[in-house]
């Protein structure tokens, strides 16, 4: 059983009323979900993500959407067109660490695994995209 997505950082929320996993305070909440997901006997997997340039501006701290670069997006069904702020080198490392920390929380909560959600144009895909992570903007940064 794979859950719906949960954001690993406060600025990674992609949908209204999306449940969170970016802090240890959410472990009890995640534990309830893991128990419910496993109650039928199947293993449970927590789907973790960062919405990247598809984060909802009114839901992220300061209304600041971040991505691999400052390339302007087109409007999606759940997000407006935005010109995100490019993550710094240190912030990229923080995001990688956040995925790891949420994985630890998933284990502590009783999940059997995690799924890295890198589809739909979210943050992981932002970095894989030649449009949103153009080669000429990678100098001095992780690609």
């Amino acid at each position, binding site marked *: *059983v794979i*859950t*719906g*997505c949960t954001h690993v950082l406060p600025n990674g929320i*992609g*949908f*209204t*009323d*999306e*449940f*969170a996993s970016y802090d240890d305070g*959410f472990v*009890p*909440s*995640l534990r*309830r*979900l893991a128990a*419910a*997901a*496993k*109650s*039928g*006997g*199947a293993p449970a997997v927590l789907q973790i993500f960062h919405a990247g340039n598809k984060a*909802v501006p009114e839901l992220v701290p300061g209304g600041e959407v971040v991505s691999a670069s400052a390339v302007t997006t087109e409007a*999606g*069904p*759940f997000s407006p067109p935005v010109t995100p702020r490019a993550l710094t080198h240190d912030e990229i490392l923080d995001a990688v660490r956040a995925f790891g920390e949420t994985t630890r929380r998933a284990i502590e909560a009783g999940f059997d695994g995690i799924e890295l959600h890198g589809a739909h144009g979210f943050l992981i895909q932002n970095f894989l995209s030649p449009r949103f992570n153009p080669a000429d903007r990678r100098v001095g940064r992780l690609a």
Partner: protein
Amino acid sequence: VARPAPAGLASLTPSDVTEADAGIDAVCDVGQVVVDDHIHPNIGCDATTWAGNADGTVSDEEVSYYRHRVNGS
């Protein structure tokens, strides 16, 4: 606009907004949407569902729904 959802999802309501443009195939009776046979509980026509509470914790409705679905009903 919308295609039928996978077997097991009852009371489907065809999408009449722009979900088709996003690749969303159907909207089911609990506000979930179906994309390429995957159920996405966190998004709906108004991008508002019951997955989480305002403080980011998992909602009671979400927990109840999982218990319902993983036990074959």
